[in-house]
């Protein structure tokens, strides 16, 4: 009966509901929710064919911004236009906003309690480790060599030591990478022309 009712809902509402569920129950950020989105959108509802979905996710992944929101906007727009995009986005972010608002209010009330302070004294160094670890994993997966190691080292130096805004560093990195990509594309084209 529940499914029957669900099918009668308008598409934007279904999108809202789908992304709300994903937003409310996925821990661990954007990539963890991807398989849930796939299951809901591709396998169950069959709104988007499988290969198109993954092609688009590859594009969405390369866009800046919140990955989950970008995915929701794309899926929503693809399935039900502007209304769908908006509904899916709201579904993805409303659980977060609600939960954080509740927690922040509670935390503000109790943060000066000695018990809470003790717990967070233990948590803070752990948070530092949890930020450092993925950055090193990323360096590994980016296949940084001794020659290209200058890039992450320079980034760290500029931001941490010189206190330069990461915004400028990102802009400079984008410019550099774009030139690099253009050169690579040109080389690839040259090879095509040769063969």
């Amino acid at each position, binding site marked *: 009966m529940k499914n029957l009712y669900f099918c009668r809902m308008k598409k934007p509402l279904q999108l809202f509901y789908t992304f709300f569920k994903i937003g409310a129950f996925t*821990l*661990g950020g*954007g990539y963890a929710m991807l398989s849930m989105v796939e299951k809901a959108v591709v396998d169950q509802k069959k709104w988007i064919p499988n290969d198109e979905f993954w092609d688009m996710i*590859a594009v969405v992944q*390369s*866009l*800046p*911004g*919140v990955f989950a*929101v*970008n995915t929701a*906007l794309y899926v929503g727009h693809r399935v039900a236009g502007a209304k769908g995009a908006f509904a899916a986005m709201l579904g*993805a*972010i409303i*659980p*977060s*906003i609600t*939960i*954080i*608002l509740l927690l*922040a209010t509670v*935390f503000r009330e109790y*943060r000066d309690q000695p018990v809470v302070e003790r*717990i*967070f004294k*233990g*948590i*803070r*160094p*752990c*948070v*530092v*480790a*949890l*930020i*450092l670890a*993925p*950055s*090193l994993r*990323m*360096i590994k997966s*980016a296949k*940084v060599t001794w020659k290209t190691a200058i*890039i*992450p080292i*320079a*980034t*760290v130096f500029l*931001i*941490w030591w010189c206190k330069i*805004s*990461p*915004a400028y560093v*990102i*802009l400079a*990195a984008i410019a550099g*990478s*774009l030139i690099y*990509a253009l050169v690579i*594309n040109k080389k690839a084209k040259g090879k095509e022309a040769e063969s």
Partner: protein
Amino acid sequence: MIYLQLLWTFIKIGVLGFGGGYAMLSLIQHEVVDHYGWMTTTDFADMVAISQMTPGPISINLATYVGYTTAGFGGSLLASFALCLPSIIMVYFILKLFMSKKNNALMTNTLKGLKPAIAGLIFAAGLSMMNTQNFPDFGCGQYNISVIICVLAFVASYFFKANPILLIVLSGIVGFIVY
């Protein structure tokens, strides 16, 4: 004024936030701690822990939290919305552009080049948090429990891919017992 600052800050983060939630962490840290001084590094660490432990995208959690602590309920909605705004515009106008195969290859290669820099960005965010506020017992001549927690959590996370939420809970328990 604070609303305008929040709006501008998070739009900027939405535009430049390549590479997921952790990369945005660095941008948020710079604006919130260094530039505007809305939070101390301890507040920031607490906020990251809370955002990590709750469901949903970490950057939306952070935006909501920053908005709420600086400008209340309205601020939290504004910051989250501002973070999404560039995405909305992009999905409408730019996504079509990148649909073509040629542009897509260029985009992928650009991103590949960007990755080492993003990794450095995140590492810098972690380094900036290594101070006596977050490591209160460092250099006190006693057992450096905070350093031990940090090293163990790092090993567990980097080598064994331990669940971050589990690590936060465990270190919270350790803190409760030890301090």
